[in-house]
Each structure stands twice: as C-alpha cells, then as structure tokens.
C-alpha cells in the first residue's frame, strides 16, 4: 500500500545517494517538482536513467547530482541542445558525466524486461550502428527455433522510479492518461517508487486511455499540483513552451545557471 506523504518526505525515502533512478515522462508528465526536491536535498552520485533526458535532467546534471546518465535522446525538445549536459560531457563540469547510450526501442525494452522480472529482452535493434561498441548492455542472442541472430538488451533494474500523474485516490491507486510513455514500466522496474500527482481524490473515475497503477506497487504518493511544470499534465495544464525556450539562454552560461539554481534551493 502506498504511503501518501508530503513531497520532501517522500523524496527523502525514495531517492538516495548513489541510486540508479529514473524520473520518467515522455514530454508529458515530467516530474519536475520531485526532481527539484532531489536538488534541494543535495543527492549525489545518482545514475540518472531516462529515455528522453531534457530540461529536468539538464538541471540535475548542472546541480552536480549525477555521476552517470543512461538514456536514448538528450535534448531540449523543439529548442535544441542541453547545455549543462554538454558542459558535463565535453568539459566535465561540474563533474564528469559517464554516459550509457541506447536507442528508444532498446531503452523501452530494457524497462519491459525489468518490469517483467527477466534479465534481458530481445529486439530487432541497433543493427549496423556504432552504439553496441560503447556499452556491455547490448549483446546478441540466437533464436533457438530459427537460428536467427537478434539483439539482446540487459534489463534496466532501478533502485528508484519517480513519475508524475494526474490523480491518486486516498488508497494510493494512481491514474494517468494522455501520452503515458514508459511510466508504468519504470515503476514496475524499481525497488522504490514515488508518484507525484496533481491531486488526491476520493474516487478515480475511469478515463479513456488511462493507465492505473495499483497502490500495492507504489511506495509513495505525494501531492504536487503543477508538479510537471514546465511540462504539462493532460487535462490539468498546458506545456510552458516559453520556459523551454528560455532555458536555452539560462543554461548556456554557468553563472546564469547558478543563479537559477539558487532559486530552487
């Protein structure tokens, strides 16, 4: 049964120094509020995992929380590059950032394998690319029926998963809809999980396209209205595209970024 707790308490329980942790969200429902709380709590040595690390991850990396990034596409969607991410990779500032890089299909299947309690997943992927040479987590596997050689990716087991959703009920059952990404898989792949929600309601009335996470696979639920800003929560808020554009300016310069960071603390 999920515990409903204040955000700071929930983050303290779920995200610990040295964790392999995913803050998932595919443009939609990105758990910014929880990520900022991680910055405030001064977490260090995190292996950050996400298919689409974007502005939130740029912030976590710039704040020095991360030791490593496991990802498949790192950019500011619709704007351009992530400058804190680039600065860490190209200049080791504020600290070196180790990379483990995949394709979306590979990452998605790595989550699926972990959510399924399997050590690996099979796909047609990465073939002919230079990606497999850069990580031990991509290998090949032979079909025992046809002899065909396919790609295997290692399960992506997480210490912690943090996602944002529209609603939870008072028992801690969570409901999210719109573009639902790999949030369910991330929660099921994690030892500990936290879901921040727009609101806690008495009853989750059924919604078309909704994914529901039963309370008993979620550890903490925290109310964080607007907690996906500047990303959005379908039917609750719209994406703040101006912020994404502004971030390009804020993040280009270390001092300017430091100023922004002070505002979070």
């Amino acid at each position, binding site marked *: 049964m999920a515990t409903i707790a204040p955000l700071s308490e929930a983050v303290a329980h779920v995200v610990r120094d040295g964790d392999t942790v995913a803050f998932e969200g595919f443009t939609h429902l990105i758990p910014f509020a929880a990520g900022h709380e991680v910055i405030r709590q001064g977490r260090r040595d995190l292996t950050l995992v996400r298919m689409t690390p974007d502005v939130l991850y740029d912030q976590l990396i710039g704040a020095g929380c991360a030791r490593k990034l496991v990802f498949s596409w790192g950019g500011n969607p619709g704007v351009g590059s992530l400058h804190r991410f680039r600065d860490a990779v190209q200049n080791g500032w504020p600290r070196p950032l180790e990379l483990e890089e995949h394709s979306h*299909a590979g990452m*998605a299947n790595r989550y699926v394998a972990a959510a399924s309690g399997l050590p690996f997943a099979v*796909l047609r992927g990465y073939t002919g690319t230079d990606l497999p040479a850069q990580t031990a987590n991509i290998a090949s596997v032979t079909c025992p029926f046809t002899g065909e050689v396919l790609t295997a990716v290692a399960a992506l087991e997480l210490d912690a998963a943090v996602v944002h959703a529209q609603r939870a009920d008072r028992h801690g059952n969570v409901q999210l809809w719109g573009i639902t990404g790999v949030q369910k898989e991330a929660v099921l792949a994690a030892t500990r999980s936290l879901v921040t929600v727009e609101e806690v309601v008495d009853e989750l009335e059924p919604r078309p396209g909704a994914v529901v996470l039963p309370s008993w696979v979620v550890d903490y639920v925290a109310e964080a209205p607007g907690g996906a800003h500047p990303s959005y929560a379908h039917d609750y808020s719209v994406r703040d595209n101006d912020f994404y554009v502004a971030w390009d300016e804020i993040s280009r310069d270390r001092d300017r970024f430091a100023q922004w960071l002070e505002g979070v603390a």
Partner: protein
Amino acid sequence: MNYSSDEMMTVAAARALRDGAVCFVGIGLPSTAANLARRTHAENLVLVYESGTIGAKPDRLPLSIGDGVLADTAVSVVGVPEIFNYWLQPGRIDVGFLGAAQLDRFGNINTTVIGGDYRHPGVRLPGAGGAPEIAASCREVVVVVRQTKRAFVERVDFVTSFGFGSGPGEREELGLRGAGPQLVITDLGVLRPDPDTRELVLTALHPGVDVATVRERTGWDLRVADDLGVGEPPTDRELTVLRELTR
C-alpha cells in the same frame, strides 16, 4: 508566391508521402511535412509518433513529440514499448521520416557525436532516439536535411542509424528488413541511392538551384543522375497551408 528554400524542402518532403501511407514521424521538419501532406494531397496519411499516438490528426502543428494534441486526436494511444514492438519493429510502417546532423555518401546518419572520439567528442548531439530502428524497420526511409558541406560527409563520425553501410548487400547481410533511405530531400534538391552502388546521387534540383551549388555543399564527389530533373515550385495552396501551419 515567393518562398524560401526551407519551404521548398518541406513541400518536397510532403509531396513524397502518398495518400493512405502510414508514416512514422519525428518532430521538426518531418512533422511539418507530414502535417502539410495530410492537409493537401494526402488526406488519409496515417501519422504515427514515437510517443505512442497512432493516427493523430492534429488541428495545429504539434510542438513536441508528446504534444497533448496528438493524444487528443489519435485513433489509438499506446505505451512507448508497444509503439516500438508492435508497430514499428514488425514492418507495419510504410515511411520513416528522419532528420540528420551528418549524412554520408551511403545514407548513414549521425545524431550522436561530431569530432573527437565517442568518450571525448568535439560536439555532443542528442543521440539516437527512435532513429536506429526507424531506419531499420520502416519499408522505406525519407531523410529531410539542409544541405551543407558539414552535414553531407564522405563518412559519418558515428553511425547512429544505418543506411547502406559502405555499399550494396550490407542491409541484406545484417537482416534489415526495410529498404533503407530511398529519398533524401534537402533545401537544394533530391538525392536517391543508386540501385547498384547504393551511393546517394543527385536526381533532382529544386527550381533555381544549379548543380555546382549542390556539389559545393556536399562533402564527397557527388554524382549527378543522367536524367536530372527539376522539381515543381510550391503551389500557392501548399505555401498557404504551410504558413498557416507554422505561423
């Protein structure tokens, strides 16, 4: 009506999509082109986005791959693992639309690192996203990219998405099922792979562009097709719809 070379490129990309085709769309130019096609000659074009929206009919240009308008107007919204496993991987998609930071003579694409080595790159790019499997599994791939000497290189610094490797037979050997990059649309013209050598060849110019300009902006000794064509300029309708979309 007057038009820019980017507009010409987008219109040419839109025209490459036949009505009724199923198209895996990346954000940016590919999405603009696909949405233009759906509003002009290809009303029944099926748009599939990697965020899991199938058959979206956005009434405005989506601002990101995960724009809420895609979920609101889709025939079906599925999770990200499903979009790759059930829809892309088995070869159900007719056309994959890709961009590129670098594109080489054999249609290989780089969106990972430029210069230096992988661990110490000159420039770190966003990475692969859905592209490696789009390039592998779609029946054919259309690349939309501005033509510059920096982007059109003899050999990409990093193969993020496999085109034809270094020539004929390689896709087949690797067991890739899609036909690979069959069309490259730039702001200057159109390139297609030579059926025998798989090398990208200039097959058409946009109106007002000459071969010398294209060759100047290509980092290898570009071959020109014997029957080099010249594209039709954008129609007023195409431009009006495009500007409506992007304003």
